[in-house]
């Protein structure tokens, strides 16, 4: 199996929605690992040494612009993982995998949209 495939070459593969959500699941998973790992380390150093770097990292984490990204990543990863787990437990629903993807976005958009709407509204009004 040839593993030397660039991202550009890989995106040319006509996998459509399931392939793109596989890619996004992978990227968002690594992002969560990086985010949580840095968060643990920065909290540890903030507690033990009070370093400026750790404090600045935590300020970035708590800014509302960063929250928009983190919320997207976490909710997408959770819902996509839920879809994968359900389809793997009951493989006969795999016939409807594209419909499952649509359902996933129908659930994602209200949850994420409402969260972001409240987040932006509260922060723009200085609340």
């Amino acid at each position: 199996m040839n593993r030397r495939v660039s991202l550009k070459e890989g995106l040319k593969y006509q996998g459509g929605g399931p392939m793109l959500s596989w890619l996004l699941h992978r990227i968002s998973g690594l992002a969560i690992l990086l985010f949580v790992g840095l968060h643990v380390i920065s909290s540890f150093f903030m507690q033990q040494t009070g370093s400026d770097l750790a404090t600045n990292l935590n300020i970035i984490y708590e800014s509302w612009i960063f929250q928009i990204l983190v919320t997207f990543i976490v909710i997408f990863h959770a819902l996509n993982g839920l879809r994968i787990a359900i389809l793997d437990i009951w493989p006969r629903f795999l016939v409807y995998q594209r419909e499952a993807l649509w359902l996933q976005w129908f659930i994602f958009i209200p949850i994420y949209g409402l969260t972001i709407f409240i987040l932006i509204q509260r922060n723009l009004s200085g609340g």
Partner: protein
Amino acid sequence: MRSRSVQPAFSFEYIMWIFMRISGLALILLAIAGVSGAFIMGARTQVDLPTLMRWTFFPNPNHVINSEIPDVAVGWATAYWQVMQMLIIFFAVTHGFNGLRNVIEDYTDKTLLQPFVRGLIFLLWLFALIVSIYVILAS
């Protein structure tokens, strides 16, 4: 189109494959339990999104102390929430590092380097577990 053949043996990869599904579902349930606990304990009117995420994914009194809720230690410093924290940490850390291993091994060949990469990931996993359980028990 022929589907990919999967070895039916009860191997390490098979156990981790099942574990990824179970731990993912468990993390969703634990997150819902954390949010519910936060709302029951009075986070209904004075919580923002970073705080809500903090309560959801690591309901530790030290972790949620920054939020505006008074008497945060009263609700969260109990054995029940300590067990919940340990479950979340175990599932999340194992799920995360196994995911990292999956991604790395998808893009690398099976060379002599692989055992060292696995060992490094195992050490990071162990380190993360020990640090977080220390935090849970010390708080």
